[in-house]
């Protein structure tokens, strides 16, 4: 993609990081890049909290008897807080709010998002929601599971359900505002020449994600408000004794929360669609299919929520319809996987750290997706519902998929965000450790679930112990793999800003401006004149041979 906005400076370059260094200049910034960094710091904080709970859960499950936690209720609180923090405060904002915020205007050649102040507001809402979450945690937590199912949450739980509902409600608004901003920006802020079929696939996926955020999140808001109402006033919206139906809550909740899975994984597709062509040096295979499959996933994603209710007492006929529709989501998802692999075919592949993460993504996402088809079948779901099979399935999508892609994206765009390069050796090592640790943690859980170990219990039968110990050992490896990037990425900040505008030789407008970019992104007005992903494998081969020749000589 050629752009006329190549870096050319007369005076000393002022990038967005050095343009104001006071805390005030950060907290009141409306620069999308700084807000992206604010999000990155805050979600990392919540990620560490969520991971701590995960560690406690895995430690507890090392032995068949409950010994780490004082009571089953304490264990319930731990996995609930793990789920709430990881989903609402890490995964949902992760790629959109960090990488999306930073990159979306850069990629379409805009100076900022359409509503910079609303963008800052969304970060503050996130922080307010997060603070409420922390307060809930400090005062004893919630023990209903992240799904807040009634009547447990409305009638029986003695914990702070209303407070947690408020936290989720506020964080939800942050998500809506981010989505709204992205939608409008994509529509109205594109640079001249940036037609719909020239925008990078990252932006297409963000657009699809934002659609879900805007249309789905309010339904989550209303369902948690109804639970709060039932708790607070004692009126039985979902109380069967008062004519209510608990399954209605599940309908409302999953109307958001199933599409929310796509809020989490579509941004993963976004990153992978950028990284794979760059490190294969080939144009993406079937651009339009990859682009439109994102939108198709967003739409289909809204039609499948009932597969969470197969064994809840939902009508069997509705179950059959939802089962068929769930299978249909596999079509656009596999279009993506096939196109990524076809992009790599006959490419000149380089195994840099971002590529390793994205290759891990493809493999793990496929595992998660195929087991998703298994649990979308009515008959198999009856067997594996509420077992570790489900746990493993969605961790393959969310951790193996989204977190891998998030880390891949952070590594890919780290030189752009900070202007620094990191240690490639340690980065590759971390990527490999993550992959190995992840599989060691969660593959045994597929087996456990299939053998019948239920989720959400802190004791289990002794014959499951071997696999559980394996899983806990894997979690340790995974933890090391996750902590390593934090160390070497932070260490890289001490180095000079020597990354250069385009260290990967990538196409895309964001690589045509300085690293780190200036406050208004581009020095000169941007005009786009050609398609995205104009990589050439032949050229890459020639360069490689030159390099070899130099080494030999």
């Amino acid at each position, binding site marked *: 993609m050629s752009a006329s906005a190549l870096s050319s400076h007369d005076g000393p370059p002022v990038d967005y990081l050095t343009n104001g260094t006071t805390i005030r200049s950060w907290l009141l910034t409306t620069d999308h890049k700084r807000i992206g960094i604010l999000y990155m710091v805050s979600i990392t904080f919540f990620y560490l909290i969520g991971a701590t709970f995960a560690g406690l859960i895995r430690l507890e499950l090392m032995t068949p008897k409950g010994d780490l936690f004082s009571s089953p209720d304490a264990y319930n609180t731990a996995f609930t807080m793990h789920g709430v923090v990881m989903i609402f405060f890490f995964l949902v904002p992760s790629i959109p709010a960090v990488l999306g915020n930073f990159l979306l205007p850069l990629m379409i050649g805009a100076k900022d998002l359409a509503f910079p*102040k609303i963008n800052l507001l969304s970060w503050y809402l996130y922080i307010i929601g997060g603070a409420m979450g922390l307060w809930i945690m400090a005062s004893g937590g919630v023990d209903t599971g992240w799904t807040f199912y009634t009547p447990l949450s409305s009638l029986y739980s003695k914990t702070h359900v209303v407070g947690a509902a408020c936290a989720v409600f506020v964080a939800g608004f942050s998500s809506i505002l981010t989505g709204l901003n992205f939608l409008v920006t994509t529509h109205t*802020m594109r640079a001249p020449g940036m037609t719909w079929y020239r925008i990078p696939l990252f932006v297409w996926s963000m657009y699809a994600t934002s659609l879900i955020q*805007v249309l789905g999140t309010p339904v989550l808001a209303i369902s948690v408000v109804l639970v709060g109402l039932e708790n607070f006033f004692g*009126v039985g*919206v979902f109380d069967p004794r008062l*004519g209510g139906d608990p399954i209605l809550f599940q309908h409302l909740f999953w109307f958001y929360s199933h599409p929310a899975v796509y809020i989490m994984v579509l941004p993963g597709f976004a990153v992978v669609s950028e990284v794979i062509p760059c490190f294969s040096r080939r144009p993406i295979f079937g651009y339009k299919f990859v682009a439109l499959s994102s939108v198709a996933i967003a739409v289909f994603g809204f039609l499948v929520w009932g597969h969470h209710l197969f064994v809840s007492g939902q009508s069997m006929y509705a179950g059959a319809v939802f089962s068929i529709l769930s299978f249909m989501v596999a079509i656009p998802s596999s279009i993506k996987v096939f196109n990524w692999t076809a992009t790599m075919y006959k490419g000149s592949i380089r195994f840099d750290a971002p590529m390793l993460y994205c290759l891990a993504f493809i493999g793990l996402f496929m595992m998660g997706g195929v087991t998703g088809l298994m649990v979308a079948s009515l008959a198999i779901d009856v067997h594996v519902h509420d077992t570790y099979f489900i746990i493993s399935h969605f961790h393959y999508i969310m951790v193996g998929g989204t977190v891998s892609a998030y880390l891949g994206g952070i590594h890919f765009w780290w030189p752009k965000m900070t202007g620094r390069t990191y240690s490639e050796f340690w980065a590759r090592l971390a990527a490999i450790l993550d992959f190995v640790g992840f599989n060691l943690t969660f593959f045994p859980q597929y087996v456990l679930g299939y053998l019948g170990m239920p989720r959400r219990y802190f004791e289990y039968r002794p014959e499951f112990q071997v696999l559980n110990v394996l899983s806990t050992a894997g979690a340790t490896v995974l933890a090391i793999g996750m902590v390593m990037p934090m160390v070497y990425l932070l260490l890289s900040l001490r180095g000079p800003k020597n990354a250069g505008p385009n260290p990967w030789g990538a196409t895309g407008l964001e690589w045509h401006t300085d690293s780190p970019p200036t406050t*208004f992104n581009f020095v000169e007005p941007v005009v786009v004149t050609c398609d995205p992903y104009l990589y050439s494998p032949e050229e890459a081969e020639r360069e490689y041979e030159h390099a070899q020749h130099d080494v030999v000589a």
Partner: protein
Amino acid sequence: MSTPSTTLSPETGEQLLLHHFGDLEQQHLSSSLGMWFFLASEVMFFTGMIAAYAVYRALSPEAFHLASLHIDKWLGFFNTWVLLTSSWTMALAVRCTQVGDRRGILRYLLLTAVFGTAFLGVKAYEYGTKIEHHLFPGPHFVVPGSPRDVHATEEGAGDAAHASDYQKLRDASMVDGQLDVKEFANNLGRFQLMFVLYFFMTGIHAFHMIIGIVLILLFAVLTKLHWFSGYGQTQIEMLGLYWHFVDVVWVFLYPLLYLIE
């Protein structure tokens, strides 16, 4: 989605251009589109409630019908009329920004606020009578005519049509001449559920109205102070979109809650 941007207010009628937009049209379109997406989000918020309403009404139509009879349709009629009128005055206020009539903007914004407040006044009166008749959901809720209804005998004659709700629900729960106890409990519960939904839906709607009125008054003051660049075309149009949306929600709530014959 409004972008009140400046204290400088050139009397050319042109709005100021924010730095990250290319031209005024792009700026206006972005605001308008942002507001529409926000309203789409709001629609889904209300849809959650309406879906709950649809499910419970489909399960117990008789209970919803009987409960609806306690909600005064003529007060609702008056309120709908008030709200439609406020929507009209709001549309005129937006028109005044387009033709550059500052006094007109103020006049119509204030009229809209007055109508909105009148709506809330009637609403408050309605809530008052419901609470007085023990129709506010919760521990004090009494199905008229039920054994718990101490007022059934006192008010007696005048309230005869309402006093027998309990009996009517009982009649509706008969299966083959036998009382289906579970169905009867469900019907009694859903009689109350109708009031839960009534208070909740109209309450959330009223909450949106309050926000709307506060914003209208704020925008009126800002217009008076010449705070908006131009005549605040974009800002007041976005406020108008919000206000009309609140009106549309009520257009559906009125027949759903007040008119179940």
